[in-house]
Structure formats: C-alpha cells, structure tokens
C-alpha cells in the first residue's frame, strides 16, 4: 500500500539520520507525523529518539500521545510495562530513574489509566498487586474501589500459593502497603469483623517477622561464635562476625523491600487506627504497649457487667490488645534470654540464659532450710494426691507462683531490668487473657490460627513462665518436648554448636525442675549429662562482688529463681551447687549415709569457705558416728582445710575417728580378691599410688592402712594447687553412676 510505503520511507530516512544529525531526524518525523498522524510507527520512532536520549519531558509528552492515540498497540504496552517495572523496582540506576521521571511527567489521569491497564495485563499475582498498589498510593480515591479487593487477592494468593510462613511477599504487601491505605481511607466503611481479621493478619505478620530465625549462613556463623563463647565462657567480639550486615530477603521481594522498619511501632499504628474505627473503648491513640495493657486491664473489670455487642466488642479489644502485649513482651524476654533464635537480635553480646532455681542459699545451715523444704515435700505430696481429682498436675504450683524474685548478675546482663520487666508484663498479659472464659476462648482461637504451638521462642517463654508459676511438672513435659526437638542429630555439627548449647539449656532447666519437685535423682541424672559435655575452665573463677555479697541473700526463703548464663563457666558451678542441694538433705538426716555425706564434703570444696558451716556440721556428724567411710575422699578432696580437719579426726585429740577413705580399704574388706583391688587401684589412683599397689596388697588387710593414710594425706596436700573445677568435673564424670545410684 502506498501510504504504508510513505510511512516506511519517512521512518527509514529518520533512522538513517538519527546518529549523525538527530535534529534532522526529528524534523523528518515531525513532518511525517503531520502527513500521517494516524501512523503508529512514526510516533513510536519519535518517542524512541527522545527516550534513548533520556529527555524526560519530551519523551513523556510522546508517550502520552501514543497512549491516547494507540491504546491497543502491543509496543506501547511493552513500553508501559517496562516503565511500571521501573516504578516497582527500587533500582537506582540511571535508566530506571529516567523511566520513573518519565512516568511523573504524565498527567495524573493518564498515570491512573496506565497503571490500571497495566494491572489488567499482568498475570503474576505479585506483580499485579504491586502495580495496583502503585495506583492506590498515587490516587487515594482509587482505594475505595480497589483497596479491599487487592487485599483479599493477596490473602487468597497466600493460600493458593501454599506459602510456608506468614512472612511472605503477599502478606508483606498486604500488611505494610495495602492495609494502611485501606484503614486510613475515611471514605470506606469496613465491618468491624473484617477490620479485626485484617488486624490479626497484620499482627501475625509483624510478630513472625520480628521473631524470624536467622538466615542459614548466619546460623553457621552464629554457631561458631557461640561455640567460642561457650568455650571461653565470656562475651566475645569477633571482628569477622558482624551482625549488622545481616541480609534478609522475603521470597519474591527485593532485599530493600524485604526490610520492615520498626515492626512493633507499625503494628501499634495499625492497632490505633483499627481501634478508633472499631470504636474501642479508651484513648483513641494507643501510645505504647504498656499503656495498652493498663487500659485493657481496666476494661476487664467492666467485662462481667456488659452484654451483647458491647461485650463482644470489648472482649475483642481486650484479647487483641493483651495478646499483642503478651507476644511483644514475651519476644523481648526471649530475645534477651535466647538471642540466637532471632535474626537481627545481637546474639553475640550474650549467649543464652537459663531460668533456674536460685541456689545461693545452698550453703545455709540445713536446719534453717529443712523446714521449708520438708514443707514443700508435704505440699507436693498433697498436690500429688489431688492429681487424681484435678487435671493439672501441680496446679497451685507449690505456692510459689506469686512474687518470686528472679536474680541475675547485673554486670553480665546489662539489660536485666528491661528483661525482667518484659517477663513480668508478658505474664500479666497471659494472666489477663486467662482471667475469663470468654477471653481465653478468643485468645485460643488466635493461637490456633497462628499455630503458636510451633513457635519455639514462645514455648521457651511459656516454659519459663510455668517454671515461674511453680508448675514444674508441666514445665518438665514442655522441656522434654523441646529437648526432643533440639537433640543434636547424628549427622549434624559437633556437639559444641548451637544445638548442643540448647540441649544443655533444656537439661539444666529440667534438672532444676526435678530438684524443685524433690526428684533429686532425676535432677542429678540430667545435670550430670550436662557436666559431661562441659569443659572445666582453665582458671578458677575470681570471685565477683555479687558472689561475695551472697551472704546477704542468705535469708531468702529459697524459692527464688535465677537467670544463669548458659556458659561452662556459669553452668559447672551451678551443677555442683545443685548436686550439693540434692545431697545435703540426705547427708544430714538421722540415718547414716556416708556416701551422701562424702559427696557433700567433696562438693563443699567449691566456693570455699562459703560452705564452712555445713562442713563443720558434717564433721560433727562424723564425730557422732565415730567412723566414716568414703573411698573417693583422696580422689576428690584437695581442700587443705578439709584435709587438716580429717587428719585431725584420726588423732586422739580428734576422737580417733575411724576413717576409711582409701579406695581399696572397703573393697579389700568386702572383697579380698587382689585382682579386683589392683584393677580399682589402677582405675582410681594413678601415678604415685600405683607404685604402692604391691605394697598394699602384700601387706595384708589392716596392717598397712595407717601408713597408707599418712602417705595419701601427704600426697593430697601436694595436690592442693590443682584446679578445683577440674577435680570436681572429674568427680562428676567418674562417679556419675555412684552419684545417681546414691539418690532415691
């Protein structure tokens, strides 16, 4: 066709000229357009020249013309999709910026139409949503028409695309971009139920975003760092592990748009708007989470008097607000106690912490405590008795649920007061949510829909909470489940990594619970499992001011809790104290139990002379008994004060107490098989003692005992400089079976 040929000729001439003389090329195209205004190629060529030269205004003008005159041209749509892609992207390259500028030159009406049409042509849900979002952001009036639909599309996409987590691209767009537009648009009236549904979707997203685990590469780094931490028992500022450079990308989004700034604050913003629009009671602007809890607490008091809609509205308000405070406070608490669980929480500043029974009163005189513990025993028995009638095992929690102190080393955890405050706020929110059947039911619905059961971090909080409440049996079953999850798998990394640290943490907490329940054997079993995995510190710990000040806390009732750092340095002493606590009662009963008494003596060496009183009490008991048999004495007692005391006991002045402290003595008496004696000797007494072996065996049963004792004492005095923690660690490992068996 002739006209077609004319147009081709004109465009061809322009193309020939464009590189050498762009002005002439444009003159040709201007002429061509006046000749054939309806020809698309001419205008497209004009546009291309301006676009390639990145002249924003003229390219924009031509794009506008094409959009108006050739709305059906696929080429125009290709161009528009390139531009809208640039709008959606956060790329800073020059061309993308030019394309965004180009779009800005278009009149608003055209932008609006362009985005709408581009959206229609999009088949990918995410792209489509991003496109529509551009529209909604620019043209608030379009929110009324498209806002809710877009939101629902995103929520449906979440379901149909089978995403694994609420922290996904669809939800992120919904919560961070669409929802604020929808709820802040005063031209829209949304039913309260929908608002609340959206509110919960937002809350779930923000909570899961904040509590997301570290990315895999960070986990490895973190593990290595934690390993070092637990090895050296202190905080470590390794320059090669910088947590500030963490990267986190939500699948389908760019790195930049995966970032959610101040999630808790955003959540509070949404809550404020939703609250205002649902006509919630109280202050319109929710100022802070703490204020919010106070307000709903207040509100709760009126709850029983309310009826109908008012009541259900009030219920929703209380549950949503209290739940958000609960999850936020619980997160703050767990992020201090278990920082490695979370991405973006500085895990290297401190390792994990364990909430355990406080044992600082373990060195107290047994008489002071006996009453209380006995009482606890009685109560426990009472509780056990009631177990059949009540579904909960230790419902009243040994009466310890209220007002317990949690001790923490303030220098090791600088944020201790915030941490404990968060823990308290979380518990209060929990209590509030369970103060009323209606509230509890609604809260459970939220938990079920969010699958909070699968939130490890929240389970950690719950476990600590029920420990605090004294519901140790419940806590134990929770800990068992967690331990099962955290058990290092055979194929996994060395046991010194994160998983084993978690494992230790759970075991120590179990031990602490068993102890609190009076199940000493179980307690020791658990903690000896831990000790076998610990490496004793090279140096004996220097005493911190807190340690020295511990005497002052002596008067505490013994039902306090303590946050213990999950490091070898802190765990080993705790294990020793816990064992001491387990044996202390047995050792000082009226029945004779030399083995327990011996263990007590060994364990009292730690933190000497804190346990001096108890030691003297033990000596008294030995004196009363007139004899004392503890074959491990020379293996594990290196304390010079104790050695002196025992040496004295044998003297006439000391009362000529018959001491059987050498390993082979009892054995030889009970079982005169030399072979076994040799074996035991070799096993238990190395070095010097091995040379005495023949001597001992050939000398007969009683004759050489005195001499052996003297030699052993002399040798023992020379061991006084040995690292006590190594000795006690060896004690735990070597005597594990005996220790456990000696407890009921």
């Amino acid at each position, binding site marked *: *066709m*002739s*006209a077609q040929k004319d147009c081709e*000729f*004109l465009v061809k001439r322009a193309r020939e000229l464009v590189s050498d003389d762009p*002005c002439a090329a444009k003159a*040709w195209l201007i*002429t061509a357009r006046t000749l*054939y205004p*309806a020809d698309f190629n001419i205008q497209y060529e004009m546009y291309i020249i301006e676009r390639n030269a990145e002249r924003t205004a003229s390219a924009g003008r031509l794009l506008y013309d094409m959009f108006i005159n050739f709305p059906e041209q696929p080429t125009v749509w290709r161009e528009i999709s390139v531009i809208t892609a640039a709008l959606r992207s956060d790329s800073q390259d020059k061309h993308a910026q030019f394309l965004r500028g180009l779009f800005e030159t278009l009149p608003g009406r055209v932008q609006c139409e362009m985005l709408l049409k581009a959206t229609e042509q999009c088949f990918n849900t995410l792209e489509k949503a991003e496109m529509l979002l551009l529209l909604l952001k620019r043209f608030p009036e379009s929110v009324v028409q498209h806002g809710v639909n877009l939101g629902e599309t995103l929520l449906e996409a979440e379901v149909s695309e089978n995403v694994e987590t609420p922290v996904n691209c669809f939800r992120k767009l919904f919560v961070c971009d669409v929802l604020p537009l929808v709820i802040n648009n005063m031209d829209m009236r949304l039913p309260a139920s929908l608002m609340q549904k959206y509110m919960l979707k937002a809350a779930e997203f923000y909570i899961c975003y904040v509590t997301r685990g570290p990315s895999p590469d960070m986990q490895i780094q973190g593990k290595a760092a934690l390993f070092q931490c637990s090895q050296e028992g202190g905080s470590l500022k390794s320059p090669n592990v910088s947590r500030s450079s963490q990267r986190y990308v939500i699948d389908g989004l760019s790195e930049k748009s995966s970032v959610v700034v101040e999630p808790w604050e955003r959540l509070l913003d949404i809550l404020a708007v939703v609250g205002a629009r649902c006509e919630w009671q109280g202050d319109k602007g929710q100022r802070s989470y703490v204020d919010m809890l106070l307000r709903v607490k207040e509100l709760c008091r009126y709850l029983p008097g309310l009826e109908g809609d008012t009541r259900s509205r009030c219920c929703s308000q209380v549950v949503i607000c209290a739940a958000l405070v609960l999850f936020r406070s619980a997160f703050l608490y767990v992020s201090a106690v278990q920082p490695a669980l979370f991405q973006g929480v500085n895990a290297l500043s401190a390792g994990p912490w364990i909430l355990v029974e406080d044992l600082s009163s373990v060195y107290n005189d047994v008489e002071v405590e006996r009453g209380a513990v006995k009482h606890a025993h009685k109560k426990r028995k009472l509780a056990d008795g009631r177990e059949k009638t009540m579904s909960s095992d230790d419902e009243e929690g040994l009466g310890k649920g209220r007002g317990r102190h949690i001790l923490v080393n303030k220098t090791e955890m600088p944020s201790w007061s915030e941490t404990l405050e968060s823990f308290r706020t979380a518990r209060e929110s929990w209590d509030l949510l369970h103060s009323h059947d209606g509230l509890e039911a609604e809260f459970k619905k939220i938990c079920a829909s969010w699958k909070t059961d699968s939130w490890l971090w929240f389970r950690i909080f719950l476990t600590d909470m029920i420990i605090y409440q004294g519901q140790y049996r419940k806590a134990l079953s929770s800990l068992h489940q967690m331990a099962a999850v955290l058990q290092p798998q055979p194929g996994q990394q060395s046991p010194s990594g994160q998983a084993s640290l978690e494992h230790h943490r759970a075991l120590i907490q179990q031990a602490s619970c068993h102890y609190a329940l009076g199940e000493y054997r179980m307690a020791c079993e658990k903690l000896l499992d831990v000790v076998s995995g610990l490496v004793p510190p090279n140096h004996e710990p220097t005493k911190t001011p807190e340690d020295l000040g511990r005497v002052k806390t002596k008067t505490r009732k013994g039902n306090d809790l303590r946050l213990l750092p999950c490091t070898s340095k802190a765990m080993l002493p705790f294990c020793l104290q816990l064992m001491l606590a387990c044996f202390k009662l047995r050792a000082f009963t009226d029945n004779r139990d030399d083995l327990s008494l011996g263990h007590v003596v060994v364990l009292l060496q730690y933190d000497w002379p804190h346990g001096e009183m108890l030691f003297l009490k033990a000596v008294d008991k030995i004196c009363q008994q007139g004899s004392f048999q503890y074959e491990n004495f020379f293996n594990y007692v290196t304390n010079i004060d104790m050695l002196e005391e025992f040496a004295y006991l044998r003297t006439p002045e000391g009362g000529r107490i018959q001491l059987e402290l050498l390993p082979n003595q009892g054995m030889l008496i009970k079982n005169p098989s030399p072979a076994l004696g040799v074996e035991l000797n070799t096993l238990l007494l190395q070095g010097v003692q091995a040379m005495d072996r023949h001597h001992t065996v050939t000398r007969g049963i009683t004759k050489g005992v005195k001499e052996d004792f003297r030699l052993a004492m002399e040798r023992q005095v020379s061991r006084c400089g040995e690292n006590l923690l190594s000795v006690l660690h060896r004690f735990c490992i070597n005597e594990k079976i005996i220790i456990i068996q000696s407890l009921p």
Partner: protein
Amino acid sequence: MGDIRQSLLPRDVLSAAKELLYHLDIYICNLVQSGRQPPQVDSKTLELVEEFILHAPKDRNTPGRRMSALQELQLLEIMCSCFQEQSRDTVRQLMFSALFSLQGNQADESRMALLGKLVSMAIAVGRIPILECAATWLQRTHRVYCIRLAQVLVDDYCSMVPGSVPTLQNIHSASPRFCCQFITAVTTLYDLNSEELTPPLELLQMIVSWIQDDPRLVLITFLNTPLSGSQPISSLDLTPLGGLVRWCVKAPLAYRRDSKQALTNGTTQNEPETGPLFSALHLSVLQVFMLLPNILNEKGLFGRLALLQMESLAALTSDLSRLLDQADKHTHASSADTHALSQLTLDRLAQALQVAMANGALLCSREDLRAICSRLPHNNLLQLVLSGPVMYYNNIHTPPLAFSPHAAHSPIASHPTHPTHPAHTPHTPLATHPSSHPQYPAQPFMTGMPFPFRPSH
C-alpha cells in the same frame, strides 16, 4: 513652547538638549493627564526636538549646531536615565516616538543615527525601558529602517568589538519583545542571496541558542499584539518565521558557496560547521509551527491568519530554483556533494511547507504549493508533500491534514501590504504582491487524488 525655544537658544548644545528633554517630559506628562485621545505631540515640539536634540539644520542657510563626541555621549547618558526614571509606559512611549518616529524629512538621518547609538548603548548597559520602546518602534516603522537599526547593532556587537556578543545575548532575558523584533529584522536583513547578506556566525549561534532555549520567543510579538488588522504599512513581519524558514532552506546552498570561496582563497577554515546550527534551527522552527494551532485557536484565528506568506514563499522557491541551477552549472567536480546539499535544501523546504500548512501557519492548498514549486528539481519528500498523504486511514479521528483555505472565515493579512514604491532599499527588495492572492485561487485539495509525481521510494 515658543518661549522655550528662546530660552534654549542661548544655551550650549548639551544643556539645551538636556533642558528640552526635561520640558518634553513635563509636556507629555501633562498631555497624558489631560486625557485627550489620542495624545499627540504637536509639530512645534517635534521641530524643537529636531533643532535642539537632532541638530538638523533649521533652514538651508543656517548650518545645524554640532555636538562633540563627548557631548553626544553625555546626551545619550541623559536620555538613558531619562527613560529609566520615567515610570509610566505611556509617557515613555510618547517621548520615544516624539524623538524617533520618522517624519520623512531631513532630520530622519540624524534621528536614525542617534537611535542606533541609543539602542546600542541601552543594550550595553541593560536599559530595559529603552529596549521595550525600541521593540515597539521596530513594529511600527518601515522595514527598511528596521533593517538599518539591526545592521547597526550587528555591526556594533558582532563585527566591531570582538567578544561583545555575550552582551547582545542578554537582550533575550532583558527584553524578549525587543529580541523577537531583532530576530525578525535580522532575518529580513540577511536573505542569504549573497555573501554580504549572510549572517555572521556569532549572530547565527546566538539566534539558534535563543530559539532552542525558548521556541516561543519567536512568537512573542505575535502573542502580545492585539490584531486590529491594521498593521503599519511595510513594517516587519509579525514573526520571524518566514525569515527563519528562508535561512534554513537556503543555508545548505549559501554556505556551500562560502566554503567554496574560502577554499579558493586558500584561507584555512577554522570556523565551526554551520550545518548543525541550521539543522537545529530548522527543527526549532518546525517545533514553533507545532505550537501554533493552540495559540491560533485561542485567539480565534485558526485558518484566518497566515503567519507564512505565499508571496515570500514564492520568492523563496524562485530564489531556490535559480541557486540550484547555478549550483548545477558551476560544480561538476563534486557533484555528489552538491546533490546532497540540494536535496537537503529541498527536504527542508518540503518539511517547512508541510508542517506550516498542517499547523495553520500557511493558508493554501497543495495545488498552490505545486504551482510555486513547479520549477524545482525532483525531491522525494517534496513530491510527497505536494501530492499529500494517501488517505488510507478511514479513521474518523484523523485530524485534517492541511488547512483548507475555503474556510468560512476570510483570511486576515498578518503581513503588511507593501507600498507600491518602496523607499530606497539597501538590498534586493522583497517580492511585492497585492494583499489578496488572485493567482492562487481558493481550491479545495482533493485528498487522495492521484498525483503524477509520487515519490519513488
């Protein structure tokens, strides 16, 4: 005023001139205040101006008084500040025309001389009120004198003092009206028919940069002038568009001639290429045409006012055919080059015609164009333009491709009618034609009509 003359006579030339300016100011203020319409300066006063400011001889016997160069400079300074200080536009305009309106007498020569110096000085020291008055003067005065003023300014700023071009460049922002009129005058002055009538490069660069920065500049006079239909006789065109089209179309041929001469003279040509400048200028002109439909529609003039005149286009095409003939005859050696330049000329002509016609700047049919272009050599684009587009688009949205002159409105002549005998012209007079175009009868162009000279693509 008679008393004034008596009091002026004994004074020295400068103080007499100064005194007269002072009196003139008061006189015109009173005139304006009296509210007489139209305010007219009486002939006595005009005579005093000629005697004491222009120093024209009163009669043949008494030779006019003369001012020294220094006195003249002082007078110019006084005049500058006089206009600068007068805050009322009307008074300024009346004073300017009392001083510089041509009276058709002997004093006009000194009038022109003084005007040239005053405007030149106003440009140098940035006296905007004087430039504004001069812009009006350039609209009301016969084009021959306008050209003379332009020539003075070009000489002063582009030829005499090297490096003073930037000063002239500033008039664009100081007084766009003056700038626009200056461009019109300059494009009328330099018709590219001979070497002398080719604009200096600096001037060309300046004009191109002005128009590139702000294409609407060339329409300033048109936009600011209420069209009463009574354009002063033989004044400049309302816009420089016609002159600029002529420049761009002729440039490839004119500058080829220049460079040829430069080569034969053996002078090294270190001047920058003018090609890109004209290419850019041509594009700017087309872009200005594109602005027109909106402006013309706003003024209710679309189809009624032709900013490009058929007469001047006819003159252009006849110039072109002569130049192209010459080019063909004189250059056998570099015929390929010649051919390319000729084609460029014809391409630009075709583009200007088409775009001007499509945007209502040129009111004629394609038949009319075929008539004035009949002697031009073959060019594909020109053929396409002359034959018009093939109407295959049945699209009702397609706007009219060209203005049909048989519109309901009668055309308004934007172009002043030329007097039958122009005053002495320093160069070839422009073709003179009656205002109506009997030789181009209004003839509807049949779209899609076959045309024997369709371009062979």
